[in-house]
């Protein structure tokens, strides 16, 4: 039951360049999407979110884009920094629903 999919298990990006992490979903009832960052031996840390009524949300170096018709969202990090090296999870929830459905994660490595 892979309602949220992150098809790239890993991604390497040069420091200073743009990192683009992708996420696809199948459940059209999802109306809110979140990105989390996770370091080893720590819990997921909330990064940025977007409501289904928007197509873009920006917070500093992080921008999330949502394409509802394609059921696709992406996280852009620019410029990428060494501290951004972590596993990134996208997550989704439905209206009035509390649970988050997570993707399998993408391990981002920033190369100095």
């Amino acid at each position, binding site marked *: 039951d892979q309602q949220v999919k992150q098809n790239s298990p890993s991604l390497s990006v040069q420091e200073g360049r743009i990192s683009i992490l992708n996420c696809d979903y199948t459940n059209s009832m999802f109306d*809110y999407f*979140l990105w*989390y960052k996770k370091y080893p*031996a*720590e*819990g*997921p*840390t*909330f*990064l940025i*979110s977007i*409501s289904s009524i928007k197509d873009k949300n920006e917070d500093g170096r992080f921008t999330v884009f949502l394409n509802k018709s394609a059921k696709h969202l992406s996280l852009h990090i620019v410029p990428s920094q060494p501290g951004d090296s972590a596993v990134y*999870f996208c*997550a989704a*929830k439905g209206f009035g*629903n*509390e*649970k*988050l*459905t*997570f*993707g*399998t*994660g993408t391990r981002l490595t920033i190369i100095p």
Partner: protein
Amino acid sequence: EPEVTQTPSHQVTQMGQEVILRCVPISNHLYFYWYRQILGQKVEFLVSFYNNEISEKSEIFDDQFSVERPDGSNFTLKIRSTKLEDSAMYFCASSAGQGNDGYTFGSGTRLTVV
């Protein structure tokens, strides 16, 4: 920065034993959650808790699992009779309100069932 605290960080238990995982959510939060991540797999929802009762649970959260808020600060997950497949990282999370918060997660308890 307020944080969600989980203890212990690592618990090893024998199959069939009961375990209690403990969490102290952020003090003014009202909604509490447990998630788990089996090694190499995705983070999965177990249960949400509000106003002293379960508000939602997944199919994973069967009769072997229970949650409790025994006092004003702790939130616990009990597994009555552990199985090998219960081995996972268990994350507690809390949020101030239902809706579109970025929940705050704890650092997790690694449960190893042998």
